[in-house]
C-alpha cells in the first residue's frame, strides 16, 4: 500500500525537509504546497527538497494562503490534482501542515489502515444536529456573505455580521447540501479524494458558494463528503492528535511534553514548536514503541480525555499577585483547610484558652488577629505571615487576603485557632463566611452575663447570619474536651480529603494508555 501526504507550509524549510525525508522513507509520495507570499529564500530551500528526491517529493506554490478564506481549500485541491496526474495514485491521502509530526512508523499506519478498511478519517459534524464550534459563528458561516477577513477588518466584519442578522439574510446551499463542519486535517481514501475533485469540477457553483463563506477549510471537504460518501464509511475521527484551545489557537507541543507525546496512541500530532528539538529528534528514530495497533475507540477516547485536560487549564484560578484589588474571594472559597474561631466576651479567659489550645498538638494558636488597633498574634505566627504587631493597616486594607494568609501560613499538620473578642474585634465577616470549613465556637466564660452574650450574638447576627447558624455555645470547662473532639474529626477529615484528592487525580490519569488499553 502506498500513501500520499499533502503538506501545507509557509515557513521553516529545514523542518519541512526533515519531515519530507521521513515521510518518503518507504516509497510514499509527498506534495508540498508552499505559500506564495512566503520568503523567496525559503521557497528555494523547499524546492531543493524536490530536486533531491525527484520521484517522491513535489513542490507547488500557487496560492497565497489566508486564514479563514477559500485559498486554504484551493491549495489542498491543487495538491490533490497533482496526485490525480500520477499513473498510480496512492491508496490514502493525509493532509498535514509543516508543524506536524508523525508519532509512529508509517508501517504501523499502513497496518492500521489495512485493519480498518473502507473508512475515511475525517471529522464530519452535522451542525443541524449538534454544534461543533466552541464559540462564535456557526451556521452563520454559511448563511451570510463574508467579503472581509476578520483578522484585518475586525470592526467591519462584526458590523457586517450584525447587518446580516438584522436584515435576516439566509443564503441557501446549492444542490441542497447540508452544512457539515470538522477539523481541517484529515486522512482520506484516494477514491474519495477523486470523487471530491470530480464533484468540484462537475458542480462549480459549490466552490463558488464556499468562496464567500467563513473558514471554508473547516467545512468544504466535510460538507461534500457527507453528501457523496455513505455515512457508515466516514470514521468521524482523525489519525492526528490536535486541539484548538478555548481561545481558538492550535495547542502547541513543546519539549516538556515529550513524555505525554510518547504515550499518545495517535499517528501524528499537531502542532509542534519549531524549537522543540526533543520532539523533532523523536521522528528520526520512530521505534515501534508499542506493538499494538490502536483501536478506533482508543483514539477517540484519548483525544477527548486530553482535550478536556487542556481546556481545564483555561479555567484555572491563579493567585499571582497583581490580579485583584485586595479581593481574595475565589481563593477563600477554594481554601479547604478548616479554621476554628473562638468567640469570647471577656479577655480574662484568653490565657486559659491559650494554654488549652497549645496543649493539643493538632492546633496552632493564632491569638487575637483581629484587634482593631494591633495584630495580637504570637511572634512566630506573625513572622510566618511576614507582619509585625503594628501591621494593622495592612490587615485592614487586605482583609480577605489576611484571612487567607492566616490559614495558608499555618503548618500543614495543624489547624489554626483564632480568638475573636466580642464585640470590639471586627474581622471581615464576609470573608470568613466564604470559607468552607469555618468552625465558630462561642465560649461562655465565667464572668459572662446575659447582656454580654446577647450583644455578642447580635453582632454576629447583624454581620454574618451564616456564621451565626453554625455557632455552637460551650462553657469554658468544656473547651478542652470540645477541642480534642475536633482534633479527632480533623484527622478523619484530612484522611477523607486525601482520599477525595486521589479520586480526583485518578479521573485524569497521566497515562492515557493505562486508562483505556483494554
Amino acid at each position, binding site marked *: 500500500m502506498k500513501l500520499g501526504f499533502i503538506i501545507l507550509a509557509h515557513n521553516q524549510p529545514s523542518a519541512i525537509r526533515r519531515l519530507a525525508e521521513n515521510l518518503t522513507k518507504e516509497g510514499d509520495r509527498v506534495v508540498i504546497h508552499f505559500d506564495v507570499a512566503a520568503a523567496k529564500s525559503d521557497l528555494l530551500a523547499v524546492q531543493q527538497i524536490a530536486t533531491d528526491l525527484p520521484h517522491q517529493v513535489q513542490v507547488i506554490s500557487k496560492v497565497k494562503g489566508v486564514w479563514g478564506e477559500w485559498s486554504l481549500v484551493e491549495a489542498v485541491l491543487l495538491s490533490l490534482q497533482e496526485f490525480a496526474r500520477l499513473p498510480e495514485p496512492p491508496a490514502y491521502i493525509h493532509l498535514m501542515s509543516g508543524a506536524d509530526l508523525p508519532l509512529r512508523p508509517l508501517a504501523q499506519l499502513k497496518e492500521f489502515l489495512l485493519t480498518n478498511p473502507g473508512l475515511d478519517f475525517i471529522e464530519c459534524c452535522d451542525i443541524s444536529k449538534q454544534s461543533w464550534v466552541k464559540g462564535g459563528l456557526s451556521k452563520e458561516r454559511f448563511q451570510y456573505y463574508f467579503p472581509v477577513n476578520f483578522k484585518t477588518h475586525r470592526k467591519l466584519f462584526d458590523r457586517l455580521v450584525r447587518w446580516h442578522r438584522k436584515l435576516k439574510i439566509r443564503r441557501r446551499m446549492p444542490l441542497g447540501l447540508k452544512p457539515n463542519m470538522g477539523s481541517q486535517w484529515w486522512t482520506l481514501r484516494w477514491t474519495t479524494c477523486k470523487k471530491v475533485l470530480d464533484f468540484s469540477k462537475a458542480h462549480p457553483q459549490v466552490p463558488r458558494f464556499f468562496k464567500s463563506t467563513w473558514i471554508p477549510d473547516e467545512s468544504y471537504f466535510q460538507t461534500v463528503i457527507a453528501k457523496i460518501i455513505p455515512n457508515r464509511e466516514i470514521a468521524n475521527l482523525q489519525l492526528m492528535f490536535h486541539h484548538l484551545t478555548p481561545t481558538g*489557537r492550535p495547542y502547541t507541543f513543546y519539549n516538556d511534553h515529550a513524555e505525554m507525546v510518547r504515550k499518545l496512541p495517535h499517528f501524528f500530532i499537531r502542532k509542534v514548536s519549531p*524549537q522543540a528539538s526533543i520532539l523533532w529528534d523523536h521522528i528520526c528514530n520512530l521505534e515501534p514503541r508499542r506493538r499494538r495497533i490502536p483501536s478506533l475507540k482508543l483514539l477517540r477516547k484519548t483525544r477527548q480525555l486530553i482535550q478536556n485536560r487542556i481546556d481545564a487549564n483555561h479555567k*484555572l484560578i491563579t493567585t499571582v499577585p*497583581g490580579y485583584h484589588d485586595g479581593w481574595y474571594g475565589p481563593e477563600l472559597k477554594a481554601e479547604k483547610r478548616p479554621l476554628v474561631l473562638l468567640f469570647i466576651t471577656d479577655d480574662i479567659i484568653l490565657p486559659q484558652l491559650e494554654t488549652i489550645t497549645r496543649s493539643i498538638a493538632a492546633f496552632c494558636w493564632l491569638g487575637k488577629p483581629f484587634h482593631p488597633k494591633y495584630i495580637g498574634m504570637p511572634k512566630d505566627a506573625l513572622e510566618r505571615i511576614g507582619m509585625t504587631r503594628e501591621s494593622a493597616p495592612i490587615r485592614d486594607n487586605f482583609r480577605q487576603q489576611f484571612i487567607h494568609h492566616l490559614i495558608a501560613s499555618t503548618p500543614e499538620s495543624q489547624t489554626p485557632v483564632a480568638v475573636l473578642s466580642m464585640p470590639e474585634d471586627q474581622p471581615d465577616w464576609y470573608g470568613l463566611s466564604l470559607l468552607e470549613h469555618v468552625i465558630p465556637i462561642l465560649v461562655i466564660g465565667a464572668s459572662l452575663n446575659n447582656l454580654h452574650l446577647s450583644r455578642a450574638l447580635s453582632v454576629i447576627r447583624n454581620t454574618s447570619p451564616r456564621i451565626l447558624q453554625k455557632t455552637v455555645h460551650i462553657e469554658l470547662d468544656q473547651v478542652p474536651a470540645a477541642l480534642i473532639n475536633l482534633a479527632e474529626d480533623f484527622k478523619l477529615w484530612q484522611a477523607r480529603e486525601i482520599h477525595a484528592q486521589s479520586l480526583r487525580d485518578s479521573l485524569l490519569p497521566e497515562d492515557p494508555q493505562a486508562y483505556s488499553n483494554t
Partner: protein
Amino acid sequence: MFPFSKISAPLLAKRRRKFWHPVVREMKSRAAWSMPNLVPVQNLTHLIKPKDRLLMTMGRDENARLPYFLKYYRDLGIDHFLFVDNESDTPMAEILAGEKDVSLWTTNESYADTRFGVDWMNALLGQYAVGHWVLTVDLDEFFVYPFMGQRSYQELLAYLDDCEKSSFYTLLVDMYPKGSIASAHVPVGESPLKHASYFDRMGYYAVKGGHEDTWTRGGPRLRAFNSETHDAAPALNKTPLIKWHQRFAYHLSTHAAYPAFLNHAHKRHHDPTGALLHFKFVSSFREKIDQAIKHNNHYDNSKEYQKYLAKLKTSEAYTLYSSLSEQYTGPESLIKANLMTPGAWK
C-alpha cells in the same frame, strides 16, 4: 475580494496619526530632549536584524555585575543589548568595548531629572526597538518565565505573538541570602543566585493604582522595612517585556507603561506571567546605599535607602531570612508559591 484595505488603510492611518495618548506624547517629548545628551560610545545598532530580540538596560557603578549579566541574557536568547552608562566612576566601556552585540551610550544627565532613566529608555527604544520584542531590566534583575529550562525565550515570544499580546507581566521577586546580607559576596562573573537564593513565598499585596493599573507591593522590602503600612513600600509590578511600538512609552520606570493596556497583560486568568529575580540584597548593598544617599538621585530623595541604612546600622549581621522564606530551585518554585503562573501555556 474587493480591496477594502486600499481605501480604509490611508483613512485609518490618518486617524491614528492624530491620536496619541497624552502621557505618551509627554514622555516622547521628554525623550526627544534627552536624546542629544546620550553620547554613543559604541553604536552597533546597524547590526540589528528585523526580528532580533533586544535588551535595554542602564546603570551606574555596577561594572562588577556586567559579565554575568551579559552571559545570562545571551544564554536566554537576546540578540542585541542597548546600554546606558550614567556617569560611572569606571566607564562601562572598559568591559563592554569590543562586544559585537552591545551598543553603549553614555550620559551625564542626572538620573533623578530624567524620571529615573525613563527618558533614556523611551528615547532609545523609540529609535531602535520599534517592532522588536524588547526586555527592559536593571543590571540586578534577572528575567525568568514558566518552563524556562524546557521552552526557549523564542517560544515564549512566539506564544505571545500568537495570542496577539504586546506585553508580558512580571513580578519583581526580591532575593536574599540565608545568612547576613553582608556575607553574600558575589564574585565577578558568578551567578548571584548561588549566593542569594531565598525569596518570600507570601505577603504580596495588590492595590488599584492611579494610573489605570494595579500596584503590587510586598516581599522582604515591605516586611522588613515598611511593615506598618503598605503605601510606602516599593512597587513590585513590572512590565519589562514589550513588543515596542512607536506609540508606546514607559512612564514610571518599567512599573507602568502607556497605553495602559500594556500593564494588564496578566488580567485574564489563563495568561502566563513571569518574574524578575532582583538581587539587591547581596554584599554590595551597603555601597549601593551609601552611593544612593550621596548622589541623592533615587525616588523621593532616596527615602527608601535611608530606611535600609537605619536597619543595617542596627547590626552587622542583619538578615532578611525568616520562616516564610523559601529557596529558589527553578521557575517551578515560583509557580508553586503562586508568584508566577504558566496560565494556559501548559
